[in-house]
């Protein structure tokens, strides 16, 4: 079976309003982050993938299954939406159990699986309390428990880390990694860019309904030739290294750090620069660290989408 999520020239309009336009993607397993400002089309894309909305144009296949076939799709796929609402009067356990039963599991299996899923999100003690009395973080976790309960191969999560405290956030990210390591899809949308940077295998950057970049973060960054790569070097005799570095034809800018203990280099060809750096540093320059300064989602966001949202 096809292990990819494929969107072929997908567009979705809400009347005159554009949701997403001409999106063509082939998403491999792993953690994929959808990044973009409000209204960029992240939720629409997730809703399209899970069949909650239908494309105006184009076609979608999730592991070879059409989203218009929920009977097949939701045996392999789960979606935790951004809606912070639940059926009235249910406890966390009843909530997970009830919808899990619809997948055809027996009562006993369902009880066991529900308890296991709730345990995985560390909500065991509150399982038999009414959801109405849960905190925001607990509600996020029970949604996650409901999504993972039937062991899906594709997990779609809209802003799953919202409202979680740092400890739970770390546990949740570990859970995503566990899922991804098993060859599953974890598609998350997030505004918190440094987190996206930490957890994602690949990113899809959206702006105004268009996909502006997709792929592995490093790969996307390398393709952006109009924005020179930035490299931070901490070293001794930074001024000497700066003069040598500036002789390289791929280097467009060098800035000495105020403390004199390092420099920021902007280069059009990072690979060539890194190779050259080995030779440049031989003669009396002690290099403590070399690190890319803008090889992350935050920079991609800033370069491709721009605006104040990149700082969030």
């Amino acid at each position: 079976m096809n292990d990819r999520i494929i969107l072929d020239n997908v567009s979705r309009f809400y009347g005159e309003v554009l949701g997403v336009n001409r999106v063509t993607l082939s998403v491999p397993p792993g953690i994929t982050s959808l990044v973009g400002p409000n209204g960029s089309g992240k939720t629409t894309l997730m809703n399209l993938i899970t069949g909650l909305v239908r494309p105006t144009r184009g076609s979608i296949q999730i592991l070879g299954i059409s989203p218009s076939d929920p009977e097949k799709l939701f045996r392999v796929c789960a979606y935790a939406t951004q809606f912070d609402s639940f059926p009235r009067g249910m406890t966390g356990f009843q909530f997970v159990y009830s919808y899990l039963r619809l997948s055809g599991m027996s009562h006993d299996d369902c009880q066991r699986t529900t308890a296991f899923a709730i345990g995985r999100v560390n909500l065991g003690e509150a399982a038999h309390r009414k959801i109405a009395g849960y905190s925001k973080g607990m509600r996020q976790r029970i949604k996650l428990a409901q999504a993972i309960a039937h062991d899906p191969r594709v997990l779609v999560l809209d802003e799953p880390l919202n409202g979680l405290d740092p400890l739970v956030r770390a546990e949740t990210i570990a859970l995503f990694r566990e899922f991804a390591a098993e060859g599953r899809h974890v598609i998350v949308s997030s505004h918190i860019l440094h987190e996206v940077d930490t957890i994602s295998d690949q990113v899809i950057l959206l702006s105004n309904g268009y996909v502006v970049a997709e792929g592995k973060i490093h790969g996307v960054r390398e393709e952006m030739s109009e924005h020179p790569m930035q490299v931070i070097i901490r070293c001794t005799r930074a001024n000497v290294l700066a003069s040598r570095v500036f002789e390289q034809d791929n280097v467009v800018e060098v800035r000495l750090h105020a403390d004199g203990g390092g420099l920021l280099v902007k280069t059009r060809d990072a690979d060539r620069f890194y190779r050259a750096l080995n030779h440049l540093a031989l003669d009396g320059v002690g290099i403590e660290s070399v690190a890319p300064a803008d090889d992350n989602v935050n920079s991609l966001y800033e370069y491709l989408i721009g605006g104040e949202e990149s700082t969030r």
Partner: protein
Amino acid sequence: MMGRWLSQIGLVIRLEMRKTFFSRRGIWVYLLALAPVLIFLGHSLSEINNRKERQALNAAHPVSTAALRSIERGSTIEEVVEKVGEPFAKNGFRRRDFIVDIYEYTDGENVFGFGFRNNRLENINERDRDTIAKDSLVFAGVFQFFFLRLAIFFGCVGVFTNLFRGEMLDKSLHFYLLTPIRREILTIGKYLAGLIATVVIFCTSTFLQLAALSLHFTGSEISEYLTGPGWGHVASYLGVTAAACLGYGSIFLIAGLLFKNPIIPAATVLVWEGMNNFLPAALKKVSVIFYLQSLSPVVAPPDANMPPLQKLLLTAAEPVAPVWAVLGLLTLTVVVVAIAARKARKLEINYSTD
């Protein structure tokens, strides 16, 4: 495959039951169902009380029915009193050229009023106590005019439009749509859940109404009625109630999928059902009330003082045979639920605009 679908329908029904029976939003449905029960209960309690009073008055002023019925017009007050004794109540008034006296007697069951003008008996007014035959006509009127057309109608508006629309308002419908269940199966499950809830609520109401109405009759009167047409009437009324839930339920299920505000389709259907008698024969069949009127066991006679329009609304138009009425209603329901299932298949979640 069919086994799984049936099991999923059962699970949807179970999930929906809790919401339908115990939601705060549905309290007024219970009130609608309870209202006629209270009316009939009040009527029966008042009748029981009246009978007790009449029996007490008869004990204080004993007189037989035969003696009271033997009084003839033209008799004087003295002749009447000599024949049947003193009345339990005397009323009267005086005008310039005549005096009116009203003497009231009771045999313990019925009340007789004798109206004298200038000491001559002119009017005899016998107020018979209620009989089952009389009350069954009253019940037929209340059932067809209030219960079917208003209570069940608006009860179904409340229950069935909420099956989808209520969850859209609560923003919780997507949980269903994200499970491995066909939307058609979900629609059928939700419809059956609504149907079970309304049938239980309104059939219980119908039964309680009949029970409340029969409270003031004696055991022998009731058993005589039941051995006659009684059980047939009870079964028919319960059947018509269930049929009303079936038909109106399907219409308001699809209304909940198509309209954001249930008042608009409810008003439209109410008008359509109301003007059923004015419609051509072919269009009459595209309504629920047409079949329900054909199935009702007792035809409610229009009251002489009823306005002509109301009289027309109550009169059944060319009723069809019960078997055709049931088939017609089932066909209408199946077609409407099928359209609703098709609509649900294309349903999208966009709570912000719903």
